[in-house]
């Protein structure tokens, strides 16, 4: 956008902008597009989780008022206190009928709860969840149940939000730190550069597990948000190195000299002039970083360093599966979920790489 284009260059280049062209190239790659659809599907699942699997009505009319108890799955306090006051004890179907025969309700697709076992007779025609070792996948428990009888499918659907948030938030933090430090180092050079380069080197050399575990241990009560922050502040070095290299290259460009000459400030030059031109190669490791953040969170939860329960993270489900290897469904479905999420982001990153790197684009022809 700010690149100096001589009239000849305008004729030679396609009339589309860089990102239009990149999107056109990206769309040609079937696997990358499939992966993009999958991530969009996951986002949908994460947002609509209480509508897919839950034991609370999406909408119900109770004693003349409309309520949305399923909102309680997002934030517990969004569940109207009237149900606690009327002693529903989290079991809606029977209580609604008993306490107000006039009531009606719209239910989630599946009557299953990610936090507790569904008992016998709670839902008409549906037996209680099996416990112990007998929770094989069935028509009521699509992905089986764990030893205490909690439905695995419901836990996975509700855990989608965690996986996606971990990817976006922690990689967002990493990108913010990495781009800022890398840009400052590359743009100013000199002692600022050597200082930041040393910092990058130090953080890269510290075994990431020490860093992550020490930070987790220092915190008193680890929540999933802490985990995202920790993964973010340990995972920015690759982005910083790449940004630095791009800035080292671009700061010598004529449009930067031009901008400086007409009196544009340093901050503005960095973020409004150079960064848009350096963004394409940086976006690729960011996408791969989302995949690795999901991987790190699930492996930490798997090792038992994750957020404490109730935390329906896929990694927590996997650690449950490891304790009961003979119950294969406890490992199989969450394992595949982690795999597909990682694969999708890697495919998107690969597609982005091929779509934005002109040398690779040539190779495809």
């Amino acid at each position: 956008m700010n690149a100096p284009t001589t009239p000849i260059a305008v004729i030679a280049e396609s009339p589309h902008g860089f990102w239009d062209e990149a999107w056109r190239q990206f769309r040609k790659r079937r696997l990358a597009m499939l992966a993009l659809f999958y991530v969009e599907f996951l986002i949908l699942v994460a947002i609509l989780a209480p509508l897919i699997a839950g034991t609370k009505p999406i909408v119900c009319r109770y004693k003349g008022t409309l309520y949305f108890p399923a909102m309680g799955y997002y934030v517990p306090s969004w569940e109207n206190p009237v149900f606690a006051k009327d002693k529903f004890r989290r079991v809606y179907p029977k209580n609604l009928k008993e306490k107000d025969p006039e009531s009606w309700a719209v239910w989630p697709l599946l009557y299953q709860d990610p936090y507790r076992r569904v008992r016998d007779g709670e839902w008409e025609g549906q037996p209680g969840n099996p416990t112990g070792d007998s929770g094989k996948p069935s028509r009521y428990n699509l992905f089986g149940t764990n030893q205490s009888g909690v439905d695995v499918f419901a836990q996975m659907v509700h855990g989608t939000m965690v996986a996606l948030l971990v990817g976006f938030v922690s990689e967002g933090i990493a990108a913010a730190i990495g781009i800022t430090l890398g840009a400052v180092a590359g743009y100013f050079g000199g002692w600022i550069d050597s200082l930041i380069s040393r910092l990058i080197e130090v953080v890269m050399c510290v075994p990431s597990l020490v860093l992550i575990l020490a930070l987790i241990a220092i915190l008193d009560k680890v929540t999933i948000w802490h985990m995202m922050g920790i993964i973010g502040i340990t995972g920015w070095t690759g982005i910083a190195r790449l940004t630095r290299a791009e800035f080292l290259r671009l700061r010598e460009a004529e449009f930067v000299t031009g901008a400086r000459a007409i009196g544009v400030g340093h901050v503005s030059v960095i973020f409004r002039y150079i960064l848009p031109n350096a963004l394409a190669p940086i976006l690729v490791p960011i996408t791969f970083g989302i995949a690795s953040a999901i991987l790190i969170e699930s492996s930490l939860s798997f090792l038992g360093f994750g957020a404490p329960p109730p935390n329906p993270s896929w990694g927590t489900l996997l650690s449950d599966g490891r304790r009961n290897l003979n119950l294969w469904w406890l490992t199989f479905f969450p394992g595949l979920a982690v795999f597909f999420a990682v694969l999708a982001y890697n495919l998107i990153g690969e597609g982005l790489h091929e779509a934005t790197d002109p040398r690779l684009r040539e190779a495809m022809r």
Partner: protein
Amino acid sequence: MTTYLVRRVLLGLVTLTLITFLIYGLIRSMPGDPVAIFAGSEDPSKKIKQEDLDRMRASYGLDKPWYQAYFLWVGNVAQGDLGRSISRKQPVTRLIAERIGPTLLLSITSLTLTYILSIPLGLYASVRSGKADERISSTLLFVLYSFPAFVAALFLQIEFAVRNDWLPLFGMVSDNYASLSFGGKVWDIARHAILPVVCSTYGSLAYYSRFIRATMQETLRQDYIRTARAKGVAPGRVLAVHAFRNTLIPLVTLLGLMLPAVLSGSVILEQIFSWPGMGRLFFEAISERDYPTIMGLALMFSILTLAGQLLADVLYAVVDPRISYQ
């Protein structure tokens, strides 16, 4: 070259000091006291006196603020003493020596397999570039590369050890190991090592094959390849001699960057398979707040990482005469 090396080593020492200082500060600020953990694990009938605990704390520098204790630790390291483990009552160097064998067994086997398999795979992919079979195999390799190793480990454990009794579930040796003959011992360890080796190989195998293919494609576009083809060199020879020799450069540097991983092992895989290696030692040391061991291992990993980077840069200059560090 010598000045370059001296400068790099000096710079590396500064970085090393910063790293260890940072790690020391971090682990000392973790809640939990290794002496208390140790005392709690001892026989409860033997009540340890408060003076003894205090003496233990003092001997590990735990009674001083961490920045003072850090210099105590640095002084000992400078004299070649990594200290004694608090929870295991053994010198850290001996602990590392005990654990490095199993880790090397896994990582060297896996590294060798990776190189043996990925070079032909990568060459095959670059010969058949763009054809249907290459596309399918490359996609499969990418899928494999994205498969999380710990998930694969669990799947393999279920299939090979739980549902079928083909391979042992975890550990490095069976219970009756001591009574086995020499051949039986080798076979026993090999059987235990199969699953961990597979899990630590397939990811890097996929990565290396893709890497070789990418660099080969880059090389095959060079002018000298066209020249070789034009003068009538056989296609196979162009590939193996003219092109592949040049893809060796990035492959060699990759080897340098692999160095820390070879010796440090994988924490999560060793944990899943209860493999008595470095990664597991590290994990246990962190849970036991065993400062001397954590510091010893962290020092080793950092030195290896820095040395690996230096080695990569030096090898780069060795295999590619165009690069010099004058």
